């Protein structure tokens, strides 16, 4: 029960001066980053045109193609955290679709979109069942799909030409994406890269990007925040697969010859992912950097050393990849960030601000908003919830207490859709007054039930502000509005000084407050709080009690699992005591704590007898 004091409160407060220095540096950074990016992108066009050598053109076109592929991959592999090693599927679909259509007289500009369409369908169909796979299993499944596609492309030789491959008919001009000179090809490759970067950049800055990263970091917390995790991931694979296919069509036209082994290639799929990792996985421009650094190595090795250096560039790739993984896991972007970004410093003067605004009159307790009837749940032979039923009224605080293992969290999981009860039901009254029986966590979030987790579930790689924004996006798709809500909520929770800090840097007290802030940003009507006061110090408990009362006074109904009796007594209008899955007592807090059954459940019969 005792914890180190520094764990209990957020004491890591740097001096106030850090703020000014930080903002000056950030202003410089705000200008430096876009300038550097513009120079990099301009270089991709200017260098080859200035030199005019066909081989240099070839290197830069290849950079654009791979940077584009890698950026598109990053939407799934980086943002969504689904490490696909089968992106060759989409690349191959785009390539084959384009070339086959050119064969029957359709311009690759149309074939490009046809390929993207098919790739999107394939992406959705193969990804949907794979989402339940995690970590390496997802990667293995994508590889298996890739192999299946390659073998099928070899098998159906009437369509694909089989192992002999397909040549594109030599029809020149813009309509056929085929030119005698190199500049138009570079222009198209560069254009595709810009489109892909634009899409990736847009996604990262909007609701979908936040939701994807939240899903990657903590799937259950994202679902509790009302994110439809399946839908956002399907959106990500669709966009990523579609863009990959479009680049695939162009690359096929550029190569003028395609075959299954080169199109549905594991090596290519790995390379795409590798560039993103080396550049900085999950960042918008990391894949571009990775491709710009590594593609020239391959092409120069091929161009200068020829067959004598067979395998040399692959060896370099492999070694670079191992070194990056070992010493630079955040890639080049991580390295850049280390030198340019000041450590996330609090923006305001130290000391969490007291959240309690002068309290308004408490609104009267209204009618029922949640009804729980006859809940049953068994885990194997263990009967964890046995005929639990109660109701929660509007604007009321209901304390849920009971010894360890009583089944409190299990009840919460059924009240928020994370567990299906074996029997019984949970009904919630919608704002329009009708009663609904939500099923999934998404349904519960939609109807206005928000929850926190006993074991905190922050989106570790996101800042405090971004964490809260994920909750705010439940109400509004607008980034500006979500940011405003997040700031306001952070202010109220005393988290304002840490808005820019990454969630992983917060102490346990801070993380507990962040849990509440994230769910409050959803503006729930019913709030389920699972031990938000455990492990925080006395001052913070006092503050948290005030906070919960002020939340209640805005008309929110609260069910709180709590072990801190001081809080239970001060807050609860009613208390329910759970023991071994059953409700053993309920009523006003003062009555319940004197109930002999309750004392027995907590302290045992002997204690009761000794005091009798």
């Amino acid at each position: 029960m005792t914890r180190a004091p520094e764990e209990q409160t957020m004491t890591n407060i740097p001096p106030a001066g850090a703020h000014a220095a930080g903002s000056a540096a950030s202003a410089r950074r705000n200008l430096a980053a876009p300038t550097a990016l513009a120079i990099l992108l301009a270089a991709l066009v200017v260098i080859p045109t200035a030199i005019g050598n066909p081989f240099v053109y070839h290197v830069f076109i290849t950079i654009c193609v791979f940077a584009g592929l890698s950026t598109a991959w990053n939407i799934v592999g980086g943002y969504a955290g689904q490490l696909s090693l089968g992106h060759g599927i989409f690349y191959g679909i785009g390539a084959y679709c384009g070339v086959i259509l050119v064969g029957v007289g359709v311009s690759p500009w149309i074939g490009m979109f046809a390929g993207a369409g098919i790739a999107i369908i394939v992406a959705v169909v193969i990804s949907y069942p794979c989402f339940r796979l995690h970590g390496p299993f997802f990667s293995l499944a994508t590889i298996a799909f890739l192999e299946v596609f390659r073998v099928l492309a070899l098998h159906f030789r009437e369509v694909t030409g089989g192992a002999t491959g397909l040549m594109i008919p030599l029809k020149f001009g813009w309509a056929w994406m085929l030119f005698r000179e190199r500049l138009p090809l570079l222009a198209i490759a560069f254009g595709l890269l810009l489109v892909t970067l634009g899409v990736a950049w847009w996604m990262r800055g909007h609701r979908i990007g936040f939701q994807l990263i939240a899903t990657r970091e903590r799937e259950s917390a994202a679902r509790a925040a009302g994110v439809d995790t399946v839908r956002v991931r399907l959106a990500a694979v669709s966009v990523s697969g579609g863009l990959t296919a479009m680049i695939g069509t162009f690359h096929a036209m550029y190569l003028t010859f395609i075959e299954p082994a080169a199109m549905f290639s594991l090596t290519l799929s790995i390379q795409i992912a590798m560039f993103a990792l080396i550049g900085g996985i999950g960042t918008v421009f990391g894949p571009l950097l990775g491709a710009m650094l590594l593609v020239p190595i391959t092409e120069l090795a091929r161009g200068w050393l020829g067959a004598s250096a067979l395998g040399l560039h692959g060896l370099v790739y492999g070694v670079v990849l191992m070194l990056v993984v070992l010493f630079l896991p955040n890639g080049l972007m991580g390295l850049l960030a280390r030198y340019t970004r000041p450590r996330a410093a609090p923006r305001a003067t130290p000391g969490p601000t007291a959240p309690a605004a002068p309290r308004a009159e408490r609104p009267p307790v209204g009618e029922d908003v949640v009804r729980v009837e006859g809940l049953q749940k068994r885990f194997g032979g263990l009967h964890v919830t046995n005929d639990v039923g109660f109701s929660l009224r509007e604007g009321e605080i209901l304390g849920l207490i009971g010894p360890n293992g009583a089944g409190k969290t299990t009840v919460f999981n059924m009240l928020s859709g994370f567990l299906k009860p074996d029997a019984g039901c949970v009904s919630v009254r919608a704002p329009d007054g009708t009663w609904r029986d939500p099923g999934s966590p998404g349904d519960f979030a939609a109807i206005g039930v928000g929850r926190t987790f006993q074991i905190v579930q922050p989106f570790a790689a996101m800042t405090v502000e971004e964490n809260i924004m994920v909750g705010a996006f439940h109400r509004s798709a607008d980034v500006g509005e979500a940011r405003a809500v997040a700031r306001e909520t952070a202010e109220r929770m005393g988290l304002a000084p840490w808005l820019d800090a990454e969630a992983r840097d917060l102490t346990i007290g801070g993380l507990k407050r962040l849990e509440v802030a994230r769910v409050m940003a959803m503006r729930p009507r019913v709030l389920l709080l699972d031990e938000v006061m455990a492990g925080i110090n006395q001052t913070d408990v006092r503050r948290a009690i005030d906070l919960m009362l002020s939340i209640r006074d805005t008309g929110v109904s609260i069910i709180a699992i709590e072990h801190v009796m001081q809080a239970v007594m001060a807050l609860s209008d009613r208390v329910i005591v759970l023991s071994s899955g059953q409700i053993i007592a309920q009523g006003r807090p003062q009555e319940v704590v004197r109930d002999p059954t309750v004392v027995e459940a907590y302290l045992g019969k002997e204690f009761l007898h000794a005091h009798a």
Partner: protein
Amino acid sequence: MDVFLQVLANGIMLGGLFAIVSVGLTLIFGIVKVVNFAHGEFLMIGMYLTYLAVTGLGMHPFAALILVVPVLFLMGALTQRLLIQPLLAAGDHHIQIFATVGLSTALINLALLVFGADIANTPPHGLRMPVEIGPVRVLVGQVVILGVAAALVGALQLFLARTRTGRAIRAVAQNRAAAELMGIDVDRLYALTFGIGAACVGTAAVLIAPLYPTSPNSGTYFVLIAFVVVVLGGLGSIRGAFAGAILIGLIDSFTGFYVSSDMREVAVFGVFLAILILRPSGLFGRQLRQSHVSP
């Protein structure tokens, strides 16, 4: 009927081949919980070493065991120590996958630089001789592989079940932190496990080299099949992997004969995907029961 029996025998022999390649991977996957994409390249390097020992030193292929097995044990242990160990703390599967993918890429291309793209054929020393067992004909080398695979599975089972080190390895696999608290040197055991896994694939390499051509890409095909087998058998279950390997061998053989030889991979990977999606704990693996876990 004779054809059917021949196809069946081919399937079982193929299964033995897949089993001997997969045993080491099962051990590494099940205990260190790392997906070793370089497993196939360990096999490939073992095959080249066998080739060099047989052609260069004039050894019998089986005698190459005394050279290949220790070298691969060392390679495995070093991979664990230098590449995987530093990444275990990160707990991030992405990073570990990329690490072994990097190793795999580097090893394939190193072999390409050293040996070139040409195929190396290890002299068979009579291992490609057919033997007739009833109505079916199989190769001597295939029978040896099946026998050694079965023996290896039995030996590893005994080792894990009966010896002190084996028990410690199983404890680490169940719960790393708890094992560490019981005074088990987890890092050493991981290196040992990785080494044993690599040594197993070294054994496989020695037996496979006389029967199959060796090239820098030899490992790629085998590693994919090995992953199929490991998942099918249930993570870390060595007996499961053996059964899974035989099953995959049969599917491969029957599809090849009765459907079309180029659809074998589609059938094998199709089964793999179905198992992965519908029954992720594998055909023979036990479901992990986690009764009370906060989501």
